[in-house]
């Protein structure tokens, strides 16, 4: 049906508050400093400018958020989300999407363009981050250090924005503090500091919440060797890494669902929930998208498992050839296609066009495993409060995983979906308080009992 008549004028008033203008200006100066560094404007390379840049960005984001929410009473205020160019796939969304995608292309394949120099001293943007890198690990920065720092800051400061936005909702507040903490401490500070302390040894991953198969290189020969030669810390990394995949993960997922990882701990999830929050509603809710999702994500899982098996085969036999397959090539293709192109370029670059969880929903092999566990043996459910649903659609619209929550809610049916990351936003935006995230043995049968009402066999009925 034609709905153009419903958007005669852009109904969202331009952001007029002086506070928001000042905040934007201040944040822009921080961004400008980064740009000047990237362009190698000489005098910028001074730690004072580096810290100023980070500080200005932080002030910009936080001040903007406070100003945005300070005059509205706490509550769900998604006003104008679908009128705004940035959040409704308009011009600004494209600009941002192209910019972030471009950044990832440089990061993965052309780091020299941002000043990274493996042989000599860095220049440009990477050089700009040297002071912080020296402070943490006594080494100059790399492109990955720049990325990690910006990533962490994004989660941290947009996390603060998120907390202000959901200040009436304790589940959201605590969950966000958790992702901020895990990113800052476990993904950023601890690995960098440990790296500095072990700089004489070969590199191995020191982010102890990064789990295979999300961490796809865990079983690669160089990484296994790195851990085996890495002394006590290396052994710990190896044993802990294996335990994480095969013991810790199933147990926690049994009790809490995949959310314990995907929306409380994981860095990809962390970025999606904070910096990605303004784009969560852009996920595709159609049945078709769900079908594509299932094909894609389980294919990636199979790919990850096969790739790892081949790599391990090579590790133990010393042969780079399995039948007619070159294991090194398989591993490289995985790294290129899944590790870089899918999780980075598409996963984050396409936030403003496809929503914040493209990677988590369509690509992440870890999410695939957790999802299977969640679906078949977990106590986690979203329960529906009797017959209270008014089919309004807020829950489905704001589900970043593209789950048609309303489909279940309006039938009084509990929601048990492999892809649900337990962000709790469906429950938060529901104007009738219909949905509740729960872990309980008692309610799992209830879900099955009500699941009889199916119109045609394949209509959303089976997963």
């Amino acid at each position: 049906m034609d709905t153009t008549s419903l958007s005669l004028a852009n109904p969202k008033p331009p952001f007029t508050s002086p506070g928001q203008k000042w905040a934007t200006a201040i944040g822009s100066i921080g961004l400008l400093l980064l740009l000047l560094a990237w362009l190698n404007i000489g005098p910028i390379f001074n730690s004072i400018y580096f810290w100023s840049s980070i500080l200005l960005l932080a002030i910009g984001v936080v001040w903007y958020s406070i100003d945005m929410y300070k005059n509205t009473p706490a509550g769900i205020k998604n006003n104008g989300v679908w009128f705004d160019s940035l959040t409704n796939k308009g011009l600004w969304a494209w600009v941002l999407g192209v910019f972030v995608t471009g950044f990832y292309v440089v990061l993965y394949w052309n780091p020299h363009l941002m000043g990274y120099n493996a042989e000599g001293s860095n220049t440009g943007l990477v050089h700009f981050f040297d002071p912080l890198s020296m402070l943490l690990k006594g080494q100059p920065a790399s492109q990955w250090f720049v990325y990690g720092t910006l990533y962490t800051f994004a989660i941290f400061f947009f996390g603060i924005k998120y907390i202000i936005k959901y200040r009436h909702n304790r589940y959201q507040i605590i969950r966000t503090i958790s992702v901020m903490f895990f990113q800052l401490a476990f993904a950023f500070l601890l690995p960098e500091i440990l790296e500095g302390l072990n700089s004489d040894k070969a590199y191995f991953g020191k982010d102890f919440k990064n789990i295979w198969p999300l961490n796809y290189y865990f079983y690669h020969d160089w990484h296994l060797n790195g851990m085996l030669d890495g002394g006590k810390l290396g052994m710990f990394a190896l044993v802990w890494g294996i335990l994480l995949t095969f013991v810790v993960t199933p147990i926690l997922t049994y009790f809490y669902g995949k959310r314990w990882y995907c929306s409380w701990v994981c860095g990809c999830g962390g970025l999606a929930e904070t910096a990605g929050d303004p784009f969560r509603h852009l996920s595709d809710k159609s049945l078709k998208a769900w079908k594509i999702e299932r094909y894609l994500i389980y294919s990636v899982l199979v790919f990850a498992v096969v790739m790892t098996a081949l790599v391990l085969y090579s590790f133990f036999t010393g042969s780079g050839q399995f039948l007619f397959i070159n294991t090194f090539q398989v591993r490289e293709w995985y790294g290129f296609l899944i590790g870089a192109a899918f999780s980075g370029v598409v996963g984050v670059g396409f936030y403003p066009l496809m929503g914040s969880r493209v990677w988590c929903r369509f690509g992440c092999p870890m999410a695939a495993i957790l999802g299977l566990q969640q679906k078949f043996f977990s106590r986690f459910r979203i329960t529906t409060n009797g017959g209270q649903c008014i089919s309004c659609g807020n829950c489905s619209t704001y589900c970043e995983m593209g789950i048609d929550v309303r489909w279940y809610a309006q039938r009084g049916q509990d929601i048990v979906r492999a892809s649900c990351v337990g962000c709790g936003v469906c429950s938060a935006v529901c104007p009738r308080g219909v949905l509740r995230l729960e872990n309980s043995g008692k309610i799992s049968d209830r879900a099955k009992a009500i699941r009889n009402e199916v119109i045609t066999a394949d209509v959303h009925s089976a997963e």
Partner: protein
Amino acid sequence: MKNILIIGNGVSGITAARHLRKLGDDKITVISKETDHFFSRTALMYIYMGHMKYEHTKPYEDWFWKKNNISLMRAEVSDIDFDLKRVKLNGKKFKDSAFKTNLTELSYDILILATGSASNKFGWPGQDLNQVHGMYSFQDLEQLEKASPFLKRGVIVGGGLIGIELAEMMHSRHKEVTMLVREPSYWNNVLPPEESEMVNQQIIMNHIDLRLGTELKEILSDDNNNARAVVTGDGEEISCQFVGLTAGVHPNVKWLKDSELAINRGILVDEYLRTNKPDVYAIGDCVELQNPPKGRRAIEPIWYVGRIMGETLAHTIARSPIKYNPGHWFNSAKFLDLEYQVYGNVPANIVSPLSSYFWKSEDGLKSLRLVYEIATNHVVGVNLMGLRFRQEICEEWFDNHFTLEEVVKDLDRAHFDPEFYKKYYKEIETHLAHN
């Protein structure tokens, strides 16, 4: 195979259609004049506020209907011939429709009337001017959207559930809003005084100009027949560019008034939702029950009722007759940021043989009221502001005749607020003990 025709693609008509399809393979046709596809009327406000687009308010994707062999038709029915079992279409064309039909008549074996409600107008002078609308249909929303670029102040007449939604809508788009409410406190013909006062506070907190005890006298027009101001009962003139009439709804049956169908305020039906005409049924907002179940009203224009009626009727037609049995009353709403739930019997004016226990949180944003029978102490109603309770537990309390003290000890089981939310149940237990 029967030929089943349904007039109205709202929740009641569509629920009937879906369940009929689930239970059998009759021919099912749904006619509506409002939109091509079923959408959620309750979400109209969110379209205007920019939370959702129209497409998000459709509970089923467009392919769903064909896949389930339910025919949809966009047309307005103008007349029904009950003897020949035929309906007449008035031939109106819909510019925004993807369906085309040149039919002028349709026959049926079974007819289901699910024509919904229409906004009340009480004969106010000026009620038919431009920029004066109810807020019921998709077309009402289009009118409001059309008026919006020029809209600085809107006046809302009537303080029910739709009135406060309309206020929130305009407020979200930075329009000034004045609400004229005839009663001395918001919705106090439904809410007990304390809860009603909490809503008053909520409205004022959101900078909406709430005029309690104020009636509309007339709406003034400019030279082009546009509303330019309202005059209140005290003679005050409030200039505005839009007037929302939200003083309740009534069954949409005007077009059937001259037919042989038995109609009082709504289409009269028995326990099986049968009208006085053979093979003609009515469900949802347009219905008036001849013998409403105990504790229920004859006309209940709410979402859940339409849904339950649709489901019940499908069973009656496709399987065996079952009586409409809606169970305990429940409803919920949201007044700006204040959530509201009610279960069972909670009159606005609680008098003997009933009494009630009331608790309110310190910040004034949460409350619980338990209505009980004085003679037995049995709890018969639960009213909640800012708290969520589990429906099935509340119904268990009523069915098993829990006393006030037993319910207060059992509150934790009904807890439905999100995880980590503060629980007030110990506080409530102590509070009750000291009262």
